[in-house]
């Protein structure tokens, strides 16, 4: 036991490198997911016709397909990029976009219709009304859903090993699979702790941001 923990501590630098990859991959994927997911959510609420249907269908397919299949198809099938990091970002980002679109769709829909109507009544165009009145309110309401999504993406980054990207969990597994040590349990606990700290710190920070931007006297944030 003693030496197993010592082994983990001795390899902490490696785990931290893996953590770096995990954090970078999560950040890039969440960002890509936001850049695609937010407009997609808006299209699902306010769009019509073929565009809306296309977005909805893409969403169902992306959400219904296991991430593993998406990532393998993108890397080995379509070969979108020779970089595993880029491919993993695209795969995680696309799938996250599909989920984020639903978070934002829900948030946009939860803004009272009267808000849009009142904005139109002062003479704003539809797009402008959505942008200046509905979106600022919806973004505040999407924080809880966004926290969930962040948690999920963070942990799903470990799937990137199928295309050779060694992030936190893989680095951890490599440690005990190297035959140097039997510290499998200790490694798993340490890796879990790192994930936990990442989740906890991020979600509390988001809570803080949420509080900071909450509307005085408004709904429970």
């Amino acid at each position: 036991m003693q030496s197993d923990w010592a082994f983990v501590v001795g390899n902490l630098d490696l785990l931290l490198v893996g953590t770096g990859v995990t954090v970078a991959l999560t950040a890039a994927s969440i960002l890509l997911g936001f850049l695609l997911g937010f407009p997609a959510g808006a299209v699902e609420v306010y769009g019509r016709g073929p565009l809306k249907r296309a977005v909805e269908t893409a969403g169902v397919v992306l959400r219904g397909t296991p991430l593993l299949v998406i990532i393998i198809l993108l890397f080995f099938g379509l070969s979108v990029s020779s970089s595993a990091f880029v491919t993993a970002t695209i795969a995680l980002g696309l799938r996250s976009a599909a989920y984020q679109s639903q978070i934002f769709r829900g948030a946009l829909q939860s803004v009272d219709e009267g808000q849009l109507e009142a904005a139109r009544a002062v003479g704003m165009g539809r797009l402008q009304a959505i942008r200046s009145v509905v979106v600022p309110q919806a973004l505040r309401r999407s924080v809880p859903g966004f926290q969930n999504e962040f948690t999920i993406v963070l942990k799903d980054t470990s799937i990137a090993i199928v295309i050779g990207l060694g992030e936190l969990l893989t680095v951890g597994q490599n440690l005990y699979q190297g035959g140097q040590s039997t510290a499998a349990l200790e490694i798993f606990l340490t890796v879990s702790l790192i994930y936990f700290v990442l989740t906890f710190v991020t979600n509390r920070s988001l809570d803080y941001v949420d509080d900071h931007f909450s509307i005085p006297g408004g709904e429970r944030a």
Partner: protein
Amino acid sequence: MGTPESTTTGRTIRARAAGLTDQPLTLLTVGAFWTWLVVRWTNDFLLDGALIERNTSFFPTAPFESAASTLGGLAASLGPVGFPVGWVAGFFEFLAASIPYLPPLATGVWATILLTLLGIALGFVIAVPLSVARVYGGGATRSVALGYTELFRGTPLLAQLFVLYFATPLTTIIRELPTVGTGFIPAQAFWVAVIAFTLNSAAYQSEYIRSALNSVPEGQLTAARSIGLSKVDGIRHVVLPQGLRYAIPGWSNELVYLIKYSSLASFITVRELFQRTDSIASETYRYTELFVLAGLLYLALVISASLLMEYVEDRVAIPGLGTTGR
């Protein structure tokens, strides 16, 4: 956090997939899928291979192979304009290649379904008190519930599986229980996975239910108390029946997630759909066909779950309550 709007946020995959379920073709496909599964399971598990030998597909491959080669020839003879025919030929080729793998995958689907259903159902049993504790509990119960949720959401499911399977005596205990690992009752690894999914899913489900409970107007409990119901009874007879209905959409998402995350159980040797696919693929190297096939089976399960939840939602719908609104 967890205001009414996160309930609406929850209306996601299921609601969207419902768009697909309007189409009769989808219903037909799902119907065929389930007929095949049930016949397959009956044959393999109950009739001991009486209809057809285990591991032998119901469908012959020859017709598909010949269709594929005929169409392939046709596509070649059509030259550059033959590509649509070429696609069709490719499709038949895929079918011909997939058919032999269907029987073992059906067995994998059984484990996947069992794992998902047990995980979600048992998780629900824990999630309800957990969410009630979060919303109505005192300081201590609230912190315990919060700690539980953060712990199981903040650490990887893989690590939870690992710890339960390799680092606790669970397997030793479970494998001594009668009937475990005989017939269609899976072995200990499966039950450890059920425990892990239950504990993990309870954390996620409790969040969905919590935000639904929050969206029940406070006046409802006040009114319940004003006719003399105790707090617990008020929650039980007034708040929960409404909150759980609000929770259905978000909760359905969790069901869909669980179907897909059940594949992680392969890590501790559970022979569910993904494990079967993976092990056949590593033997035959037909990765593409097998993963596409598994993807389709997962999609069929997800759509079935959507249909089921849609039905449930309709059955328990009450005018003016919850999701039938905008």
